[in-house]
């Protein structure tokens, strides 16, 4: 046995082992090129000769770099050769070989320097794999990625447009809804039959619902467009009349369900009254929709030394535990009723309004009752 790292066994032995190394070299499924330390080709196998169209004999004596296009040549001299000398090998390099027919053949090249111990001049071995398919695969991947990015970008633009559309639509719907509301008020002062009055009452309720829905959708679209919920806090005017007004409106929608209200507010409360009214409207609407119809919905609005507390309670089945984490997410609807109950924005917007006030909206639900509680500190934190 030889102790050298590279000692070709005798051909007799090869054949005995069932391997013809000469043939393996010539017809291997990759190109082999041997060169001296300066890169002059000393031998090339048949596979390489076939790929490139040069007869193997004609390649001998040429520099390996002569087979590369200009760019490749520069890379070869400035990177490939130095790395090869430093590391003894350089692998998985994507290059192009210029064929006899002047075609550029994409290849992946591995190269190593041999360091014969017994003073033999070191030489360079190149192994080459044609990589046309791999390159087109890579290009395909790249194209797919670019396409995906373009799609994401287009969808972002799309969804922004959609939200702007919602904002404009909501905006423009408010006027006719307000008109109908005014019409309902005016008709309410006319002499009407009982039936006419009933119809008018229902219409009034529908106007309130539509207006509330539009407010929520607009706030949601505004939030998505980066506007967020803006507050106009004002402690000079009282909050209670606004809450009473909301309760009166919701009673008109309640269709027989009772709404009980207790007010114990020490004015003034420094808040955005319109927003707090919207929050209450959303909580009451939610309680009327999901609570048991034969039990009253209760509102308690009060202040203590530190906070404004608005609690809305309804009876009926408790909220399932798995629904808790989704309650305040937009477009979440309690799925138990089958029929659709609006967009599922009410609690989300209520929570956003609470947050904008530096307060919180929490929920407790058991067999006895479900209670949503809004708590807002009456004083801004000490820092401001």
């Amino acid at each position, binding site marked *: 046995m030889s102790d050298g790292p590279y000692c070709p066994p005798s051909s007799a032995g090869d054949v005995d082992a069932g391997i013809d190394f000469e043939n393996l070299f010539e017809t291997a499924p990759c190109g082999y090129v041997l060169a001296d330390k300066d890169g002059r080709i000393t031998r090339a196998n048949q596979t390489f000769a076939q790929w490139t169209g040069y007869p193997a004999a004609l390649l001998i004596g040429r520099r390996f770099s002569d087979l590369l296009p200009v760019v490749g040549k520069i890379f070869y001299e400035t990177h490939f050769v130095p790395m090869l000398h430093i590391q003894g090998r350089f692998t998985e390099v994507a290059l192009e070989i210029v064929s006899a027919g002047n075609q550029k053949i994409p290849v992946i090249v591995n190269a190593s320097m041999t360091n014969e111990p017994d003073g033999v001049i070191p030489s360079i071995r190149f192994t080459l794999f044609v990589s046309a398919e791999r390159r087109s695969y890579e290009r395909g991947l790249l194209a797919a990625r670019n396409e995906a990015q373009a799609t994401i970008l287009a969808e972002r633009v799309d969804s922004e447009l959609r939200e702007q559309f919602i904002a404009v639509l909501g*905006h423009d719907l*408010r*006027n006719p809804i*307000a*008109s*109908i*509301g*005014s*019409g309902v*008020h*005016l008709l309410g*002062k006319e002499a009407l039959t009982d039936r006419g009055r009933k119809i008018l009452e229902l219409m009034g309720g529908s106007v309130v619902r539509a*207006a509330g829905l539009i407010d929520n959708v*607009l706030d949601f679209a505004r939030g998505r467009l980066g506007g967020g919920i803006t507050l*106009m806090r004002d402690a000079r005017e009282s909050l209670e*009349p606004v809450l009473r*007004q909301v309760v009166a409106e919701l009673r008109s929608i309640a269709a027989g369900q009772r709404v009980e209200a207790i007010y114990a507010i020490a004015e003034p409360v420094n808040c955005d009254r*319109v927003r707090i009214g919207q929050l209450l409207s959303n909580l009451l609407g939610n309680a009327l929709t999901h609570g048991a119809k034969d039990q009253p919905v209760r509102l308690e609005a009060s202040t203590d030394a530190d906070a404004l507390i608005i609690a809305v309670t309804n009876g009926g089945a408790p909220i399932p535990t798995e629904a808790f984490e989704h309650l305040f997410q937009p477009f979440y609807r309690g799925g138990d009723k089958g029929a659709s109950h609006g967009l599922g924005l009410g609690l989300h917007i209520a929570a956003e309004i609470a947050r904008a006030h530096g307060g919180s909206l929490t929920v407790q639900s058991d067999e006895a009752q479900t209670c949503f509680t809004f708590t807002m500190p009456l004083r801004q934190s000490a820092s401001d």
Partner: protein
Amino acid sequence: MPLEESKIILLLVEDEALIRMHGIDILESAGFIVFEACNADEAVIILDKHNEIRLIFSDVDMPGSMNGLELLELAHLRWPKIRLLLTSGHRRLKDDSLPGQGKFLPKPWSEEALVNKVRSLLVA
């Protein structure tokens, strides 16, 4: 003081007919005399003719050469004694962004809120 108030003349500027009628209904029920205009240009013509108008109650977004806020600014320059009340369904303005100590009332107004606002402006 219904007798006293019956002499007070207001100008309501609103482009939506039903809302305008509603506003007139509320204010007339409260004892005011109400002139109406459906845009700012019409309002200026009425203001030119009637120097007895004490208060302008105007919507913000209306067709025409001026919006409601611009109308109030012009009115404040030309008739500085007139009280100003602005309203809108989709805009919310701060009182201090209005000319001449004007006030803002968000839509939809309740009867009570509108009348209270008008009265507080007239006594101020």
